[in-house]
């Protein structure tokens, strides 16, 4: 690493990392929940 990075603005990189993580994990959670609801709903028919 060349020198200190103190004081530099990394807002875009930090935001991108957190948003990508939230979107991917959230999408997976939504998908597994939707699949469960679909099959458990039919199971009660």
């Amino acid at each position, binding site marked *: *690493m060349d020198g*200190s990075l103190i004081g530099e603005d990394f807002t875009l990189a930090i935001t*991108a990392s*957190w948003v990508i993580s939230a979107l*991917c994990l959230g999408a997976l959670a939504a998908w597994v929940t939707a699949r469960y609801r679909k099959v458990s709903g039919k199971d009660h028919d």
Partner: protein
Amino acid sequence: MKMLAFLANPDRFRRLTGPALPVAGLLAAGLILAGAVWALGFSPADRVQGEAVKIMYVHVPAAWMAMAAYAFIAVASLVGYVWRHSLADIAAREAALPGFVFTLLALVTGSIWGRITWGVWWDWDARMTSMLALLFIYAGYMALWRAIENEGQAARAAALLAMVGAINLPIIKFSVDFWETLHQKASVIRADGPSMPASMLWPLAIMALGYTALFAFYVMLRMHTVILEKRRDARARPARAASTATISHPAPAGPDPSSPGQGEHA
């Protein structure tokens, strides 16, 4: 052994893990939210890389879970292979997609972090290359399950791949020690203990626990779903068999029983 046999019954498994599902989900949401607030709002900047260290709180837990999920798959595969435990095979299969996602996130967030601190999006050093290999192993594992139609044969083939692929886990872990790498050496799980201050270690630990609870939620919910799907398919089979019998013994008069709308469709 008795515990394995005890959990082999799908209905018993559902009864035991049913209450744990919402707990895991709420725990995951709560821990990740708390960890995010602490990491982004109250944890200090690094003395060298400044605020860029905030990426650590999503990158490191993702990398840990990428490896932990694979270890879970390898152990479940061993149990399924040796003791023919069908739920263990299902657990291994359903852990693959979350593991793949965690690995992808570790690579993507690591790439972003590397760009701003090292000046490069990627380097073929031992750590990054072995993590990329892990991503390919996950993809190959999921593809193998889908490629073989017979579920029992698919389970055995996939289990063998999973167990052999587990050799990559110590390679990933010790890659920064065995080889000269761009990736930094371990700063948490070390023989001398963590080299990270508590103000960073605590939010990192909370995020890691949140990711672990999330993985547990994913896998348990998928297992519940698969068990219900199998039960639904098993109930549908006698109904299909009855309608097939009607077609093979047509009535002497009346409309053609083999016309569309009657009996089993492919």
